[in-house]
């Protein structure tokens, strides 16, 4: 029971909670930089969830070495790891672009607060 509860929390509810914390931040924060951080937190939650789908108990990292010479029973699933590698790079690209837009907005209007930007005559 205890083991099952722990594995459910680390593989399912933990990543979901991280994702929802990011969603909460995205919906409530007014500052553009805090919104970028919230999007990043959502990314981490999804990545953690996909990685945890590839979990195999007492498995090695999916790399052949001198210590691990053969394959079937000992490796974690490499496919989610490859997909998450792609997702991390995309999230870096998106974050760089969001932050560049934020810097432009700040240099143009002097603020990164969404309510103040909404009140301005643009």
């Amino acid at each position, binding site marked *: 029971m205890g083991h099952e509860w722990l594995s459910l929390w680390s593989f399912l509810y933990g990543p*979901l909670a991280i994702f929802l914390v990011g969603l909460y931040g995205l919906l409530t924060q007014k500052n553009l930089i805090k919104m970028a951080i919230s999007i990043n937190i959502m990314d981490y939650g999804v990545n953690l969830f996909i990685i945890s789908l590839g979990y195999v108990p007492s498995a090695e990292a999916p*790399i052949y070495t*001198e210590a691990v010479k053969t394959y079937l029973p000992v*490796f974690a699933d*490499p496919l989610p790891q*490859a997909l998450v590698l792609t997702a991390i790079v995309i999230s*870096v690209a998106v974050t*760089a*672009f969001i932050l560049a837009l934020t810097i432009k907005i700040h240099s143009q209007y002097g603020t990164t607060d969404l309510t103040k930007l909404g009140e301005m005559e643009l």
Partner: protein
Amino acid sequence: MKKVIAFLLFLGLLFFLGTGLEQGLKLGDRNTLAGKAGEAYLKRTVNSADPSASPSRVEYSSETDIEENAANTVTSVVVGYRSFDTLGEVTVLFLAATGVMALFFTSGKRKRLALAKPNFILSVSSGFLLPLIILFGAYVFTHGHLTPGGGFQGGTIIAAAVLLLYMAGNAYKAPSTGLKILEGLSGAGYLLIGLAGLLLTGFFLQNFLPQGRMGALFSAGIIPVVYLLIGLKVSAELSGIVSDYMGED
């Protein structure tokens, strides 16, 4: 009060989504490798071209000329089986870097970002650390098919070295024209390798070099070449983003 309602909504959504996914995923039953990937895929042979041949066992450092024989299986997936996907990923990174450059370019000459004056320890130790960081980054992306890491990780490490230079000295300016040329050439190199595969074997990004012995530095066909190009491209791109953020002087 508002925060309490938000927290209750958060918990409700968590258990709504969680219980729904829990039943669909059956996490407990699928914690074996056979339960995750297709069984036919796992049992197929990699030693012959016929996929219905009897299953084979792969042995590290003795296997020669098997399909996609990078010792790092994740690299086999990323740059071998899903190489076209990685080409798209590199394109997305290129678009983001171009977008950042365009956003900062139109604002004319921007003043350099005012960082705190670097202290003595940082400015002296950056001289020692810089070659080590670049060497480590190059190691990570040239050994991407053997050890953890690869082009994206190694490129990020090298871009961190450029960021260190910016933080350690007020006079440093990254050579942005050279970075753009390096980025363009390595991106074009990736495409040319794909086209060479199309010409020689009939499939885009198909392996056309000898596979070699698994676990050797020169093995796995085009995978190390592609990861070397990706490493150069990502390091040039991320260094360009860093220098765009820092502004002109």
